[in-house]
């Protein structure tokens, strides 16, 4: 009998939720759009800038000597650059602004004779990392041509060895955005959740429900479980989009790391934290308007502090410390542990404990404050 009632309570909640025209865009379309646009926007800002992108380059030569032709061939064939042509009538300024070029390399007359150097002009807004990379490349290739060395990089490799450890801090744009905006949307469930609760309380349907033989605990479960399931569905769909759809559209890569099984406990706990936040918003507000303001403001602030809107890795130290007050930070870091750091369950566990405490805190306060009628 109890399960029949619970099933009906959940069915009712899901029907109302799915028939609300504002809910589906808020919970599913919003994070998808944010993942798509902000992954593109973040591309190259904090990711591995030089190796993941090619510099659009206009390569021009004023002489046709073997050396200048050899240099031109070496530059054009390098994987760091993508050679483009200068549209007719475009000066350098116009070329950078409208022509899609990021740099212009000019081999002047006299290069082969050693009287004039190769000239490089950069788009003034080009990132400094790209400038340094291209400058080093041109110097190296010019040296190869002038000195008659075939592959200067291989020759120099015996003198310099790179010992950089594997990147475990800088997420790729999709690694940042997919879990980040999914978590954000999961916490946004507090809005429809608290509004629905307060609307039912104010329009009399909830008090009417208690004229039937049904306990408040069962009603609470019937309200929380559907939103919890929606949370699981949200993260599942966002991950599927992140793995299969987004790389096709954006050309960015996304992988789940070496232990994707850890997604299960992390998602279970994050969904508990986000529904807990929803229950707390419902308990603290008196009207649906109050609850939506409270839930939306809370979620946005948690997102700002938690490294969702601005990646935690690029935050100044003080903000990095402040981020720890946001449950979204712990949730996001738990996902990044899986995707980026290939962390063991033991290293994710402390984050899950913090999120579980947050969920318990929310449910406890809500349980004490909530007025059913």
């Amino acid at each position, binding site marked *: 009998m109890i399960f029949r*009632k619970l099933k*009906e309570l959940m*069915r*009712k909640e899901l029907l109302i939720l799915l028939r609300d025209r504002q809910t589906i865009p808020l919970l599913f379309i919003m994070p998808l759009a944010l993942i798509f646009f902000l992954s593109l926007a973040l591309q190259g800002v904090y990711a591995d800038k030089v190796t993941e992108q090619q510099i659009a380059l206009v390569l021009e030569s004023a002489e046709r000597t073997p050396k200048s032709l050899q240099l031109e061939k070496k530059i054009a064939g390098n994987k760091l650059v993508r050679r483009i042509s200068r549209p007719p009538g475009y000066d350098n300024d116009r070329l950078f602004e409208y022509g899609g070029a990021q740099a212009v390399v000019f081999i002047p007359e006299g290069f082969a004779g050693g009287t004039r150097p190769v000239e490089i002009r950069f788009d003034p807004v080009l990132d400094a990392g790209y400038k340094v990379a291209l400058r080093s490349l041109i110097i190296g290739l010019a040296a190869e041509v002038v000195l008659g060395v075939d592959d200067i990089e291989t020759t120099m490799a015996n003198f310099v060895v790179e010992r950089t450890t594997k990147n475990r801090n800088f997420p790729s744009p999709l690694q940042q955005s997919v879990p980040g905006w999914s978590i954000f949307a999961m916490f946004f469930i507090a809005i429809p959740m608290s509004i629905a609760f307060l609307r039912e309380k104010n*329009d009399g349907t909830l008090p009417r429900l208690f*004229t*039937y*033989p049904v306990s408040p605990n069962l009603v609470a479960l019937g309200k929380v479980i559907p939103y919890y399931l929606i949370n699981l569905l949200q993260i599942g769909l966002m991950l599927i989009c992140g793995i299969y759809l987004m790389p096709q559209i954006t050309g960015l890569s996304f992988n789940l790391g070496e232990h994707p099984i850890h997604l299960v406990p992390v998602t279970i706990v994050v969904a508990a934290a986000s529904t807990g936040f929803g229950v707390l918003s419902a308990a603290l507000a008196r009207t649906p308007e109050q609850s939506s303001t409270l839930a939306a403001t809370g979620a946005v602030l948690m997102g700002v502090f938690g490294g969702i809107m601005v990646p935690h890795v690029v935050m100044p130290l003080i903000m990095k410390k402040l981020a720890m007050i946001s449950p979204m930070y712990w949730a996001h870091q738990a996902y990044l542990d899986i995707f980026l750091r290939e962390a063991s369950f033991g290293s994710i566990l402390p984050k899950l404990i913090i999120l579980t405490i947050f969920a318990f805190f929310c449910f406890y306060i809500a349980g004490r404050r909530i007025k059913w*009628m």
Partner: protein
Amino acid sequence: MKALEISGITFSYDHPASEEKADLRECALKEFTLSVASGRISALLGPNGAGKTTLMRIITGQLRGYTGKVTIFGRKNMDRETLQLIGYAPQPISLFASLTAMENLRFFGTMADLPDKQLGVRSREMLETMGLADYAEKRVSSYSGGMLRRLNLAVALLHAPGLLLLDEPTAGVDPQSRHHIYETLKKLNAEGMTILLSTHIMEEAQRLCSQLTLLDKGSVVFAGDMADIDDLEKFFLEKTGHGLRDE
């Protein structure tokens, strides 16, 4: 047998923490007593704020923390069986607007422990009775005021309660819907259902009810047979005064 017996109910909405200032508390109900015989329609009248809705909420188990006793068909505890004996149509339209009439009935019927088989049959019967059969699959948000009132009543009747509590069941409806509701209530009463009707419409009370309880400021100011009263509105104003009640 008495369908409903209320004796010495006192209730205040003030916080229990102010117990030491009990004399300063304003009581919504003070030593309230009421008795409704089985199979009758009894009117509960009173000005705004008299305590009618509070009383309904106490009878339906929504409010606790009162002193006194409520007995429904001889049952003192507000347990599952007792709650199943009560059907309550609250004054606000308490339905899920984005669900259809059928979905609303299915929901409340399940909460009332109606078995699945019976639920479908009773739902269709109730929609037929209330003239809503053609709108069973329409969302409640598209209903008119009269249709909403009738569905609100259908939900209360779904599990065939012995005692029906109605809080202003015809507020804001057109004469056609009102007439339909009156006829339905008369029919249900003729079949043996006990009804407690809270209303502001004097004509409604006089037309339907055989008993009257007049309530003001949380206390009973009159209880007796409706047949003894000629002009109910005049009687009401004599007993409760002409002053406005805007609280």
